[in-house]
C-alpha cells in the first residue's frame, strides 16, 4: 500500500512541482497517471521512491515512511519498488543478463556483488524474469544490440528479478513505436494480473490509459484534478484534466484494441 499525505514539492526557484497531494494506492491496482507534460506526473512518481525529494508531507510504503528513512532502511524500501524509465536506463555495453542481475544487488553485501557472485537462486530468478518478457534467448547479448522495445522488456525483467511489490513506470512507451508499445503495455498488464504487483504508469496517450488501467489519476499543475475508476474517466473528464479538448496526438490510434 502506498500512502501520500499532504505531499508538496517546490523547487528552489519557487516553482511548485506538486501541491498538497493525498493519495492511497491499494495492492494490485493498475494506475495510469495522466496530464499535460509539466503537470507533475514524473515528479509524483519519482517522489514515491525518493529519486526526487519532497518539500512537505510524508509518503508511506506499506506503513513505513520513506520520507524519514535513510541509509540501509531507505535502500531496503527502494528494493521493494521497481522502476521503469522512458530511456530504459540499461548499461548498454554489458549483457542483458548482467543488467537483469543488477536488480538483485540490493539484496546482497557489497563484497559479494563486487565479485559478481550471485547465488543460483538469483540467476534462476533472472532467467524466469527474462522468460516472462519473452526475451530469454538474448540473455548473453550486449544490451545495445537490442531494439528499443526489447531493451524496455529487459528493464521490466530487471524489475521482476528485483522482486518488487510495486512498479513505477515513468513514460515507459514514450520512445517506442505503436507495435512495441502494445507489447510492453501487455507485459506490464500481465505482470500486474499474474503477480499482483501494484503498478503506476505515467502515460501520454489517453486511449492507452483507458485500455490498460483500472484507475486513473489526472494531474494538472501539480494538483490532482481527477481520481477514479477508469469507467468514470469520460472524455469530459479528460478535457477537464488537460484544460482543453483532447487532441489527436494524445491518442495512439487504431493499433490499440
Amino acid at each position, binding site marked *: 500500500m502506498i500512502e501520500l499525505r499532504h505531499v508538496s514539492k517546490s523547487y528552489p526557484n519557487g516553482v511548485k512541482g506538486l501541491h498538497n497531494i493525498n493519495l492511497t494506492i491499494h495492492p494490485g491496482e493498475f494506475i495510469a497517471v495522466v496530464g499535460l507534460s509539466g503537470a507533475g506526473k514524473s515528479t509524483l512518481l519519482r517522489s514515491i521512491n525518493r529519486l526526487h525529494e519532497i518539500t512537505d508531507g510524508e509518503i508511506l510504503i506499506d506503513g513505513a515512511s520513506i520520507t524519514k528513512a535513510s541509509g540501509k532502511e531507505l*535502500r531496503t524500501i527502494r528494493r521493494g519498488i521497481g522502476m521503469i524509465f522512458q530511456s530504459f536506463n540499461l*548499461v548498454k555495453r554489458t549483457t542483458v543478463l548482467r543488467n537483469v542481475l543488477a536488480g538483485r544487488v540490493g539484496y546482497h553485501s557489497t563484497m559479494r556483488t563486487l565479485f559478481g557472485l550471485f547465488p543460483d537462486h538469483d540467476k534462476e530468478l533472472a532467467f524466469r524474469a527474462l522468460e516472462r518478457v519473452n526475451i530469454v534467448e538474448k540473455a548473453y547479448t550486449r544490451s545495445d544490440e537490442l531494439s528499443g522495445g526489447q531493451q524496455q522488456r529487459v528493464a521490466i525483467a530487471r524489475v521482476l528479478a528485483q522482486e518488487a511489490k510495486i512498479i513505477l513506470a515513468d513514460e515507459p512507451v514514450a520512445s517506442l513505436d505503436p507495435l512495441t508499445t502494445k507489447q510492453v503495455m501487455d507485459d506490464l498488464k500481465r505482470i500486474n494480473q499474474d503477480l499482483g504487483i501494484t503498478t503506476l504508469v505515467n502515460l501520454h496517450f489517453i486511449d492507452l490509459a483507458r485500455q490498460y488501467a483500472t484507475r486513473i489519476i489526472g494531474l494538472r499543475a501539480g494538483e490532482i484534478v481527477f481520481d477514479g475508476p477508469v469507467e468514470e474517466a469520460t472524455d469530459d473528464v479528460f478535457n477537464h484534466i488537460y484544460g482543453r479538448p483532447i487532441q489527436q496526438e494524445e491518442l495512439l490510434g487504431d493499433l490499440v484494441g
Partner: protein
Amino acid sequence: MSHPHASWEHRVKKPPVKKSRWIIAGLLAVVYIWAFSGVPLNGFKETALQVTKAIASGIFSPDWDYVYLPDGEDLLRGLLDTLAISILSTFISAVLCVPFAFWAASNMSEWGITSKTGKIILSVIRTFPEIVMAILFIKAVGPGSFAGVLALGLHSIGMLGKLFAEEIEQIDCGPTEALIATGANRIQILWYAVIPQVLPGFLSYTLYRFEINVRSATILGVIGAGGIGTPLIFALSTRNWDRVGIILLGIIIMITLIDLLSGAIRKKLV
C-alpha cells in the same frame, strides 16, 4: 545606380577592426622580435656536416652485430628493458589514477570533495617532468630501470587521471538512476552502473598512454634510469656512429610496431 562605386559606403559600413586585435598583434610582434633576436646563430661546430654524414651513413650501414650479443648489453635487451619499463609504469599509473579521476570528475563531486582541487592536483603532477622525477627516484632506489618505472608511473597519473575524469564526466546517468531505484548502495552503483560504461574508454586511454610511455622510456637512460637510452648516449659520446644508427633504427621499428598494435586494439575497444 548612377554612382555604383560610391553608394556602398552609405548602405553597409565595414565593421571596424577590434582594438583588442591590434593589441594582441602588437604583443605578438614584440614577443617574436624578442624570441628570434636572441637565437645564437654562431653556435655551429665546423664538424656539423661531417657528423651528420657520419650519422646518416651509420643509419644506412648499421652495426648489425650489436642487435644480439650472447654476453650482455645488446640492442634487443635494451629495447626489451625499455618495453618492460613502459608496460609496468603504464599499469601502475592506470591503477593509481582511478581514485584521482573520480575525485576530479565534476559529476561525481557529490562525494564530498570538489572536483576543482582534484583537477589542480592532476595538472601539477602532469607538469612535473618525468625525467626530473626519474632523477629524484634514482636518489631513492638507485640508478636503473626501477627508478624509470616509478618516475613514469607517477608522471602518467597526471594525464591518465585527466582523461579518465573526462570519460567519467561523459557517462549516461540513466543506469545510475536505475540502480539507485533498486536500492543499491554507492559502491554497488559505481560497480554496476558507472564502471561498465567507462571501462572501454579507460582501457583505450591506457593503451594511448602506453604508446607515449614507450617513447618516454627510450630517453630515461639519458639520466641513468634504464632502457635503451643509456647505450645510445654512450654511443653518441664515443662517436660510435654505426651503433647510434642501429639503436635509432631499433627504436623507430619498436615504436612503429607498438603504435600499430596498440592502435588496432584501441579501434576494437571503442
